[in-house]
């Protein structure tokens, strides 16, 4: 299993926040980094499942459908 759970969560948060237009308050950083580390553990779990190119994402786009009668 890939383990990317050891990373600079605070540096990552600061850099990425600018990309999505968030000005992070330093008071919020401890909570944000704790949640990012938890998410990284979850990401390691999902990255550990071998997939093939045929494994599509779960949401399937529907171009249109008839309204209920």
């Amino acid at each position, binding site marked *: 299993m890939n383990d990317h759970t050891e990373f600079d969560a605070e540096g990552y948060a600061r850099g990425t926040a600018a990309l999505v237009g968030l000005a992070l308050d330093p008071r919020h950083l401890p909570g944000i980094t704790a*949640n990012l580390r938890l998410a990284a553990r979850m*990401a390691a779990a999902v990255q550990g499942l071998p997939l093939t190119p045929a494994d599509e994402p779960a949401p399937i786009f529907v171009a249109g459908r008839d309204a209920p009668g």
Partner: protein
Amino acid sequence: MSAAETAAAVRAGRRSAKDVAEAALADIAARDGAFNCFTAVTAERARAEAAAVDAAVSAGRDPGPLAGVPVAVKNLFDVEGLATLAGSKIERDKSPAARDAFLLRRLRAAGAVLLGALNMDEYAYGFTTENHHYGPVRNPHDTGRIAGGSSGGSAAAVAAGLAPLALGSDTNGSIRVPASLCGVFGLKPTYGRLSRGGAYLFAASFDHVGPFARDAADLALAYDAAQGADPDDPAQQWREAAPVSPLLDAGIAGLRIAVADGHFARNGHAEAFAAVAIAARALGAAARVSVPEAARGRAAAFLITMAEGANLHLPDLRERPDDFDPMTRDRFLAGALLPASWLVQAQRVRAAYRARVLPLFDEWDLLLTPATPYVAPRIGQDTVEVDGEAVPVRPNLGVYTQPISCIGLPAVAVPLADPGAAGAPGGLPIGVQLIAAPWREDLLFRAARALERAGVAGSPTPPR
């Protein structure tokens, strides 16, 4: 009095809906201070709706299967004339809803009378209903403990007897977790079964809505009334209504029921597994099966929820982060920053996990698991010891529900009538989770009813 008994008395003219509504309103005024379930009581509306039900009875018309039955809804459901709070401070200043949510319209059309709106975790992102803005919901069985969440007000109101029926929503366990901790029945139907129209979304990939009740028959009444096609919900599958009330007493003969092993036999306290053992004995479920990749399914749901929830609230996270509940704010802020590849991988894992799980239902009609890993923790409790390790108490509450909603399987939380028999600390409530194949809610109800008839399931009466 159950919803079914109230409706029968009102339809027969033995009791007026007005009397029922006045008694319920007086009860809320007298007792909800101890539980903090309601964030709005719609007293005038309740009186007007009850009067309309009584007028129908007087005129010889049938007001419907929920005639005069008081109901209350999680405050993420639109209620005409009220701002839809979704547990937040931010939404307080938004325009009042122009009309009721679809599910509330369905219950009203069946004769129900709305009592008010119910407390919840902010934007449904939590399992505890320790709401910073509106205060914690207190468990009717021990007011020092949480009611669970995010539909904590819904479960506690039903458990306390303030309303026989309530509506909630469940994205990762937000109906099933509080149902277990408060000792009531809670249904999360198949993803796409009931309309979410007019319900404030949290993470659309997993958002479900459903009812709470104190017995299986009332749960069935509410579920049957709630069914119906809604063009306003893009995720709803427009299927024919499939009422379960007529099938309730069909029994479980011939049903193949197994206890889920692996992930569902770890991560919890002894009372959770003892509750499963008691239910398994009553259902004749001797076999144990593994739900493949359940932990990965939970992880996928965790990431997708975080990202979708964060994106929904990104404008407010940019403009007014301090107006969020501190408990949810930092989760949302982190969720806004997740790498896209994690999200796409999680959605692919979700589909792959579903493909591995669905074949189980070729062999089994129902799976049985704990509903929660332990009884209700204390309000403010941060950690709990599980399998010899201190874990964060809040996210771990969804350890058994999250892998199921991840792939939209219908599930019902069924409370033990006697939690003490499972060794539940302090005799506090605890439930089990029954899981079926997509669209087989009927089997959930038959098994829940069978457990009730065996004396195993039931809503324990809280102390007064």
